[in-house]
């Protein structure tokens, strides 16, 4: 089928099909039947899965051995392949990194039908190029991800959330970020700051006190209802805004009341009421070394605005695309620069 010259968009459960530029492929390649957890080695802290497996099903399997895959299910029902292809991330990223840091092996099918793998089953491996990192966030434009091997983390014994509405949101976030509390997540939602501390009971108790001595707040053993969810509803304009940590104050102020996300790493999400919010935020983010991407929005909006924003090294990216998919069969037009 791939040799038939038709265009293809791979999909898992379709939860992020509306992300990126709109495309109308000839074929929607549904990988949801390839949903097995192939192998879990708790002693080695690794799991090997098929791309169509939901994150939830993977957590269920590795959870039995007291472990977790430190990725967030930011859109319910999402599959591993979809999370990898979009580099979707949530609160866990401050502590454990994103998909690019957790992926240690990958198997893909190229546009010409050739099956190839990179990485392996061990955390430490520098043999060859890290194709896995190239695949993460590539939105199905380089190859179809079919299998993945991840490094796992132990489930924490205890988790506590310290939540507060500080007068100086960015200042409070900074105080916690640079402290010795070693927060596992520093998240904002509108004017609320919520800090996750995880680990052993004695350690967590002391660290929670450290956080409270800096920002006050109330303590809970469950996450706030908004935790790990994007702030936009279907049909709204959803943005991903990044910036250097020192730009948090300006970005949070400009992003409006419906901002939510990982202040601790400089990646937040916002709802734009109109299209020109995108341009305004983009200028501010750029001043702080960051970017704005329109993650999800109605098609008309995407056609009217620069969804991906300026992308340095675009030429080089096009050349990589050309090598992998010279006939432009995979998700053509979905990605940066019309790739």
């Amino acid at each position, binding site marked *: 089928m791939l040799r038939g*010259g038709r265009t293809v968009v791979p999909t898992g459960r379709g939860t992020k099909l509306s992300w990126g530029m709109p495309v109308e492929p*000839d074929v929607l390649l549904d990988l949801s039947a390839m949903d097995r957890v192939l192998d879990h080695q708790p*002693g*080695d802290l690794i799991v090997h899965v098929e791309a169509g497996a939901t994150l939830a099903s993977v957590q269920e399997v590795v959870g039995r051995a*007291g472990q977790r895959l430190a990725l967030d299910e930011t859109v319910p029902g999402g599959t591993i392949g979809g999370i990898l292809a979009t580099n979707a991330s949530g609160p866990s990223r401050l502590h454990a*990194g*994103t998909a*690019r*840091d957790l992926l240690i092996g990958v198997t893909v099918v190229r546009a010409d039908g*050739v099956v*190839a793998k*990179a990485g*392996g089953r*061990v955390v*430490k*491996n*520098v*043999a*060859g*190029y*890290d*194709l896995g*990192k*190239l695949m993460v966030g590539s939105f199905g434009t380089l190859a179809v991800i079919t299998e993945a091997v991840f490094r796992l983390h*132990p*489930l*924490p*014994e205890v988790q506590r959330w310290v939540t507060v509405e500080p007068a100086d949101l960015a200042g409070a976030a900074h105080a916690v970020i*640079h402290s*010795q*509390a*070693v927060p596992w997540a520093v998240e904002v939602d509108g004017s609320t700051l919520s800090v996750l501390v995880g680990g*052993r*009971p004695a*350690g967590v*108790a*002391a660290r929670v006190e450290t956080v409270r001595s800096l920002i006050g707040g109330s303590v809970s053993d469950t996450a706030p209802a908004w935790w790990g969810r994007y702030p936009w509803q279907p049909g709204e304009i959803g943005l991903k805004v*990044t*910036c250097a940590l*020192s730009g948090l104050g300006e970005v949070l102020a400009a992003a409006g009341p419906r901002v939510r996300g990982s202040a601790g790493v400089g*990646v937040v999400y916002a709802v734009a009421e109109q299209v020109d919010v995108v341009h305004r935020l983009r200028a501010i*983010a750029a001043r*702080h*070394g*960051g*970017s704005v*991407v329109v993650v999800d929005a109605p098609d008309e909006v995407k056609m009217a605005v620069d969804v991906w924003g300026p*992308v*340095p*090294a675009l030429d*080089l990216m096009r*050349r*990589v695309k*050309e*090598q992998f998919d*010279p*006939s432009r069969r995979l998700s*053509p037009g979905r*990605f940066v*620069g019309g790739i």
Partner: protein
Amino acid sequence: MPADGVIDDPARLRTYECDGLTHYRVVPALVVIPEDADQLAAVVRACADHRVPFVARGSGTGLSGGALPHAEGVLVVTSRMRAIRAVLPDDQRAVVEPGVINLDVTRAATPYGYYYAPDPSSQQICSIGGNVAENSGGAHCLKYGFTSTHVLGADLTTPQGDLVRLGGVAPDSPGYDLLGAVVGSEGTLGIATSVTVRLVRLPEEVRTLLVGFASTDAAGAAVSAIIAAGVVPAAIEMMDELAIWAAEEAVQCNYPAGAGAVLVIELDGPAAEVAAEYDDVARLCREHGGFDERIATDAAERALIWKGRKSAFAAVGRISPDYIVQDGVIPRTALPEVLAAIASLSESSGIRVANVFHAGDGNLHPLVLFDDSVPGQGEAAEELSGAILDLCIAHGGSITGEHGVGIDKAKHMPRMYDEADLDTMQLVRCAFDPDGIANPGKVFPTPRLCGEVPGKHKGPHPLQDRGLGEIF
């Protein structure tokens, strides 16, 4: 370029004929030492214009021959580009030139309460640019990750002499993660002229323990128990009897007497968390036969415990005229089996092997000891070294955990990856370096024909003109 930045005197060229892997030597045709990114780019452009191969060299400490020069090529040395451009503690970032020494990044960040986490044992000499090329590791990888975890941006001079910006101070730059492919690409995709690194908060407390065990099996079981208990130590290093003895002879580290193996375990983080973890770790070590436990709570005591481990490579040089430092990875759970197999290979070949390794992540450094003046020993050592790599692959591991493929292991790549895998990786190489002039002969045993129109490319390719299929 300044006159002293271009070297063509044969005697001086010889000083660049190898890196840390001294048994491969090639004298470069020319050595250039640019002072800044513009000069470096101009050099690379000149190479591109004349299709002259080039090889980059940082501090020349690499252990896989990554900086082994090309006889008809230019060796581009980055040692003069050693400015730390910015330390940005509020952003948890630093921006450095490629020639900056790894440990100097930490030194610059420490006054602000930060440090640079990747700590290869050569960190007092190795360069950030070299670390980027090799995706260097160190003892603290299990908890902190590798160079790729800590490099967020780079200015790269492509093999065609163009300067591109990859990533930056903020995470998740839109587009492909080209930086992720560049880190660890061993100089085959270009030369970084500026690197933006992540800085990590200095931990509140660091506690280091040294524990003796009767055997590597017992020590390995303790490691597995620690991991199973949900502890992620900052480092767990193991040395076997021969390695301990060598270190003892060299630096009198006074490791537990009679130990068949030792573990050096480091815990770091908030004080209360470290205390809680330590209780578990100490108990689990004892339960697995650990004895003579020693704890360090300040920098001086910590350095003392690490002294033996850090001197291991040099130490074996005292007990053996020659040695091969191998670098392989196995799943941690395969440790007892693999060590037993190495012991058996050692016995049957009569070649001694001292084992030092990052027990937490399964990265082995078998030190294969031999005397080259004895006929046949050199070959036997090479054979044993290769057999160890076969063991690693047979157990689902890797042929290199941190030293890189370089020239040394290119021939082993097909043991780990099949033709389709290597071909796919080289698609990336073709995109960056269609003329094949960036560190040719490294990493891949057989270069891929790129099928590109050779020469400079500007702007997007005319895809439709190539008639490579239809677009619907």
